[in-house]
C-alpha cells in the first residue's frame, strides 16, 4: 500500500518527466476493447454470480417456504435460530474436521508420491524419479476421473458389512471378528471411512499438480542439495516444499473448500448424516431443510457456510503469502 502514496507524491525536482499516470484519450477502439474484454465478462459475472449471492442473502432474511412468490421478511430470525440449532453446530464441527484433515492427509500423500516419481529415484547420476514413475502417475490419476457420485456408490459396496470388499479382505487375512464391521454405520468409524474415500479420489490429481510444479524447479538445486549431503526427506521438506509453496497453498484452499462442502460423498455414504450424526455436514443439513420447505432457513445456513469458506480461503492465502521464498 505504501507504493501508492509514493507514486502520487510530487517529486523533489519540480516537474516530473513523462508522468506515468497520463490519460490516453478514450478512442472508440479503446472503449470497444474495454466493453468486449472487460465490460461483458464483468456484466455476466455480476449477473450470474454476484446477483444470486445478493439475492441469497436477502432470502436468508425471510421465512420463504420455497414455493410462494412473496416471502415474508423476518430479519435475522433465521440466524438467531441457527445459533440455537444443535444439529447445525454438529454439522459445522464435522465440516471443520474435514477442512483440516482432508487437506493435511491429501497434500502430505500427494507430495510424497510426487517426490517419489520426480526426484525420489536412484541416488546416483542425474536426479530422477523411481523407475515406472510415469505409470504410477497415470494410474493414481484414475480415481479423479471418476465422478464423485460413482466413487460414492463404489465405496458404499466396498464398505458393505455383508460381503463388502474391505471386510472380505480383513476376513481373508485372518481378522475374522472384523468381517462384519459396519464402516459407515459405526459412530467412531463413519467420518474416517468417508475421509479415506475423498482422499482416495483426490490424491492423484494433486500428485500430478505437484509433479508439474517440481518439474519447474531447476535440477541444479537438487544436485547441489545432494552434494551437500541432504537426504531425501530433508530435500523434500526443505527444498521442494518451499519452492512449490504457491501450489501447496492453492491445494490447501481447494481441499479445505471441498471439506466445507463434501455434499456428494456424504449424500451417498451417509444419507441421513451417518450414525449419531457423526458424518452430518452443513450442506447436507441445509439440503434437508430445503426438502422440508424451509428455504429461508436453509439459505441462512448457506450464507454462514459461504462466509466460513471465504475466511478460510483468505486465511490460507494470506498466511502463505507472508512466507514467500525468493529464488
Amino acid at each position, binding site marked *: 500500500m505504501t507504493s501508492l502514496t509514493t507514486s502520487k507524491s510530487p517529486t523533489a525536482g519540480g516537474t516530473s518527466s513523462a508522468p506515468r499516470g497520463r490519460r490516453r484519450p478514450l478512442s472508440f477502439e479503446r472503449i470497444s476493447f474495454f466493453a468486449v474484454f472487460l465490460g461483458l465478462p*464483468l456484466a455476466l459475472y455480476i449477473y450470474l454470480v454476484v446477483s444470486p449471492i445478493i439475492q441469497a442473502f436477502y432470502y436468508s432474511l425471510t421465512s420463504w417456504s420455497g414455493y410462494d412468490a412473496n416471502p415474508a421478511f423476518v430479519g435475522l430470525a433465521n440466524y438467531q435460530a441457527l445459533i440455537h440449532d444443535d444439529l447445525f453446530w454438529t454439522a459445522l464441527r464435522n465440516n471443520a474436521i474435514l477442512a483440516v484433515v482432508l487437506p493435511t492427509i491429501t497434500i502430505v500423500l500427494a507430495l510424497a508420491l510426487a517426490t517419489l516419481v520426480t526426484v525420489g529415484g536412484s541416488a546416483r547420476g542425474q536426479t530422477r524419479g523411481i523407475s515406472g514413475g510415469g505409470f504410477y502417475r497415470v494410474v493414481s490419476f484414475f480415481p479423479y476421473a471418476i465422478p464423485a457420485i460413482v466413487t460414492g456408490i463404489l465405496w458404499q459396496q466396498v464398505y458393505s458389512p455383508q460381503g463388502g470388499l474391505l471386510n472380505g479382505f480383513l476376513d481373508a487375512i485372518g481378522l475374522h471378528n472384523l468381517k462384519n464391521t459396519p464402516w459407515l454405520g459405526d459412530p467412531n468409524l463413519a467420518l474416517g471411512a468417508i475421509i479415506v474415500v475423498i482422499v482416495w479420489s483426490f490424491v492423484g490429481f494433486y500428485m500430478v499438480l505437484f509433479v508439474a510444479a517440481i518439474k519447474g524447479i531447476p535440477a541444479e538445486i537438487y544436485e547441489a542439495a545432494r552434494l551437500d549431503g541432504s537426504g531425501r526427506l530433508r530435500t523434500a521438506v526443505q527444498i521442494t516444499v518451499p519452492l512449490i509453496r504457491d501450489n501447496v497453498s492453492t491445494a490447501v484452499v481447494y481441499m479445505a473448500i471441498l471439506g466445507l462442502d463434501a455434499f456428494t460423498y456424504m449424500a451417498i455414504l451417509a444419507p441421513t448424516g451417518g450414525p449419531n450424526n457423526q458424518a452430518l455436514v452443513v450442506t447436507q443439513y441445509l439440503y434437508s431443510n430445503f426438502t422440508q420447505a424451509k428455504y429461508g432457513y436453509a439459505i441462512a445456513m448457506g450464507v454462514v457456510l459461504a462466509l466460513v469458506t471465504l475466511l478460510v480461503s483468505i486465511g490460507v492465502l494470506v498466511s502463505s503469502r507472508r512466507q514467500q521464498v525468493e529464488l
Partner: protein
Amino acid sequence: MTDVTEQNSEGSLSRIVSSGLPRRDFLRFTLVAGLATPIGLGLAGCATGGGSTGSGAPTVAGAAKSATNPFGIDPKATVDVVIFKGGYSDQYAIDAGKTYDTTWTGSGLAKVTSTTKINTELQPRFVGGNPPDVIDNSGADSISFAGIQGQVEPLDDLLEAPAIGFPGKKIKDILIPGATDPGTFDGKLLQLNYFYTVYSLWYGAKLFKDNGFTPPTTWDETMALGEAAKAKGISLFVFGGQNAASYYHEFALSMAVRQGGVDILKKLENLDSDGYTQEPVMTAFQSIEKAVKAGYFLPGGSGMIHTQAQTQFVQGKALLYPSGSWLENEMKDITGPDFAMTSLQVPALAASPKLVKGFHGAAGEPFIVPKGKNPAGGKEFLRNMLSKEAASNTSKLVKAATIVTGTVPADGFGSTALASATKIQNDGLSEVYNWRYDSFYGMGKQVVTIWNTFLSGGMTSADLAKQLQGLSDKVKADPSVKKYTVS
C-alpha cells in the same frame, strides 16, 4: 524463473495499486459499465420472479358442470400431468391418460410426463405461478407438502363425482375405507393417495418351507424362530440402518397398536409428553431390544442402506423384514423366481391383543391438483385414474393395490406378495390403523439416526423412548410449526 518468483512476492493487489492511476480508472470504468448492464436483468431474474402470484385463477374457461362433466372441464383443453417415475414406473399413468382421452374422445388431451426429480423440476414452476395440473408428489425429491399446502385445490368435490365403471356410485363409495385420511388436512381433502400400502412383516415362503419354519404369530414365537434360525446360521431380522432403520419404528408402533388398540396413537399424533412411555409402546421397544441383544439381527446393519439390507433378505440371509407392500416390486430384479414373498401380520406382543385382525394400512403416493391453469381437468384426470378399468390395469402392471376396492383378484395377478397383502387387507379392514405425525412433522431423518443406534446395540429401549420423545417435544415447542390434532 527468478523473475516470476520476485513478482509473486509482491502480491497481486499491491502490484495493481503501485502501477498507478490509469489502471484504477480502467477498473472504475469497467465496474460502472458492468454494473449498469445487469441491473435491469438482475431484477427480472430473481428467484421469486418479482412478485407474480403462485396461485392465479385458472386460465382454461371450461363448460357448465353436468353429470357427465362433473367438474365443468373444457373438453378440448390439455391436462398437464407430471408423474414420479419410481418403483411403479409411469406406464400406469400413461394408460390412465389414454382412458382420459377415450372418455373425452380426443387424442393427446392428457399430457403425461414423468421424472424422478419432482421438487427440482417443479419448484420453479410453483414460484412462477405455472404448476402442472396434476402432480404425483412422491420420491426422495418430492415437494414438502407444508410448502405448497395453500397452493393446491381441495378435492372434496372429486369424492362426490360419479365413478367411472361403477354405475350409480360416487367416487367416495368405491374407495377403501380410510383411504382419504392421510390426504385430509383441516377437514379438506388436499391429496389423493392413489396406492394402498399394507405395512407388515415379509418372509420368503420357500425359505420357510425348506427349513421347516412356521411364520410366527406372537412375539414369543418370533424369538423361538430367531433361536431356531440362529442354529442354521440364518438371522431373524435385517435392517438398512443408513437410511431405513425407521422401518423398525413403524414395525414397533404397529405391534404396539395391535396390542394396545388405536387409542395409543392419539398421544403420539398429538405429540403428548407421555406418547412413548405408554405401556404397549415400551413393551414393543423392549421386545425388539431382546432380539437385538440375542443377536438375531444380521451383523453390520448400521452400515447398510435399505437396498443392501433387502438384498440380504431376498437372498435368504435373514428371515423377516418389516416394510410396505412396495417391497416385492422394489426388489423384483434380484429376487429369485421361487422366493414367494409373502406378507405376514405383525406378531402379537402378548396374549389377547386388542386388534385381532388389525393391520397398518395407508394410502400412499399423493396426487395433488395445484391451483394452476386447468384444475378442473386435473380433477377429471384423477377421476379417470380411479375408474375401474384404469385402477385394475394399474394393479396388474405394478403388482400393487390402488385405493379402488375390488380391483385386485384373489390370485393377486400371480403375485404372492399382492395376494397375501390383499388377504390381510380384506380380513382386517375393520381394524385398520395408520398415523402420520412422524412424516408430517418431518422427523424421518432423525428417527432413522436414533433407530440405527438402537438396532446396532448402542442404546437401551429406555433411551430410545426418551430420544424419540425429544423429537416430539421439540416439534410441539416450536411455535412456527402448524400442528394438527387427533381426537
